[in-house]
């Protein structure tokens, strides 16, 4: 698994629950190091072990943790770079939803060995969509729900999101857009330094 993914889990735990909890997770997962390198690759089992250890340590369901990681990735100032990169995807939330089809390509253009799940958006009505997320690693769909929730806030849109389960490696998320311009949202300018 790419170091960026493991690093995301690490940052989420450290920023949300503190270093002591993270160190506990590291020991529980049997890692010989306490920090992930964003630009290195790790065995897939490392990620699974760390997630299991996180669920045990925090005494929470894994799916909830994954969703929180998604929200954290967009809303925490420590990882602002990622939120900005996602905002480049579209001028409004619907535009952003349509950009998710090319998310794996966008990721690869930045980090050539980063493989993200294949995402496909289907538009059922002007305000009803479904997203399918296909990967040999399950759980991405829950992270995506968290990301979408936070991105809707970021754009100032009001949307209902629901993870509808996993079938043969394909996770489905239903999206209902209640209001496109519900609130101000967060500012985004193309020039990073004027933000």
């Amino acid at each position, binding site marked *: 698994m790419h170091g960026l993914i493991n690093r995301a889990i690490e940052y989420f735990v450290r920023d949300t629950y503190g270093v002591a909890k993270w160190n506990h997770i590291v020991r529980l997962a049997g890692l010989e190091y306490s920090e992930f390198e964003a630009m290195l690759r790790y065995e897939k089992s490392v990620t699974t072990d760390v997630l299991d250890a996180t669920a045990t340590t925090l005494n929470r369901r894994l799916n909830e943790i994954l969703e929180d990681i998604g929200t954290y990735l967009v809303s925490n100032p420590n990882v602002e*770079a990622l939120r900005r990169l996602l905002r*480049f995807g579209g001028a409004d939330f619907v535009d952003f939803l349509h950009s998710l089809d090319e998310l794996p390509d966008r990721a690869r253009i930045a980090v050539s060995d980063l493989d993200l799940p294949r995402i496909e958006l289907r538009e059922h009505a002007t305000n009803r969509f479904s997203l399918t997320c296909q990967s040999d690693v399950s759980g991405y769909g829950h992270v995506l729900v968290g990301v979408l929730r936070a991105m809707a806030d970021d754009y100032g849109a009001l949307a209902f999101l629901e993870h509808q389960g996993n079938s043969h490696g394909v996770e489905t998320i239903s999206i209902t857009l209640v209001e496109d311009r519900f609130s101000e949202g967060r500012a985004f300018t*193309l020039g*990073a330094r004027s933000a």
Partner: protein
Amino acid sequence: MTVQPPNHCDVSTILDTMCPMHLVLDATGHIRHVGPTLQKLRPDRSMTGARFLEVFELNRPRAMSTMADLLTASGVKLHLQFRAEPRTAFKGELMPGPDPGEATINLSFGISIMDAVRDYSLTSADFAATDLAVEMLYLVEAKSAAMDASRTLNLRLQGAMIAAEEQAFTDTLTGLKNRRAMDHVLGRLMEGCDPFALMQLDLDFFKAVNDSQGHAAGDHVLQIVARIMVDETREKDTVARVGGDEFVLLFPGLTDHKTLGELARRVIDRLESPIPFEGTVCSISASIGTVLSSDYKSPAAETLLADADVALYASKHAGRACHRFFVPELRLPAEIPTTSPGIALPDAPNGVCG
């Protein structure tokens, strides 16, 4: 961008949407129409009606002062910039038309786009949907973020490499132990109760090889020397390169004068046989000084090394290619002819010379 377009658009509307940074000049060289994004860059002053060459400075092609001049530049890549601050640079292209005598110029930021989006707070709505500007901005940010992460990793790896080198025990050129390793082994020997011998060996004439035959020859000689010393010593002995041409050998459990003397002799003899290198030969020799831990009540590592050094220098003074055991008398000034190092001492009872 969600405005419902009419069924049929005039050319001006089409250009405003697809080329939001275009201008139309009338036959006198004045700006007749300006695209919405380009006008956004000068919010306080309408460009319409101004003379094109008073708003923009044309850097290439140069010496354009009339509308007739400008029309000659059709199809050529233009380099221009605002005359007023911020003096944003543009790339441009001019075509005659739409009406006779008029000219249409389309502009783009080119490489100055990074500054432009910052200076003018542009949004993706300011660019045509087909413009790759926003993708390019994405790419720049994504790549800088990835580069930052890589740089962090590189710094950490560099730190780890330096630490690993410091902790390494091997001399990379010869494969022998290094000074650190020697200190470590010597420390262990001092803690144990078994006696041991410490031999200090200096190459003679090595500098001459390096100077006259080059560093490659010097490196080759050091590798041969290392092999000879490893050959002549036992598995449990330690051979370390502690300086450019300085070596320390440690012999646990061995304090017999005769054995050590013969070993030193063999090493010197073998080192003296010419070493071939790329069609020439390199000739060196060596001087050796030895101390025995059993000669001391409670020796310190520094003392052993210093005394071995004294014995080594006595060997050098005795005309090189010599081996001597340390005896306290060597420390007496009279015994060491410091003023005439080329003259050999009389045969010393505690050592041999070649």
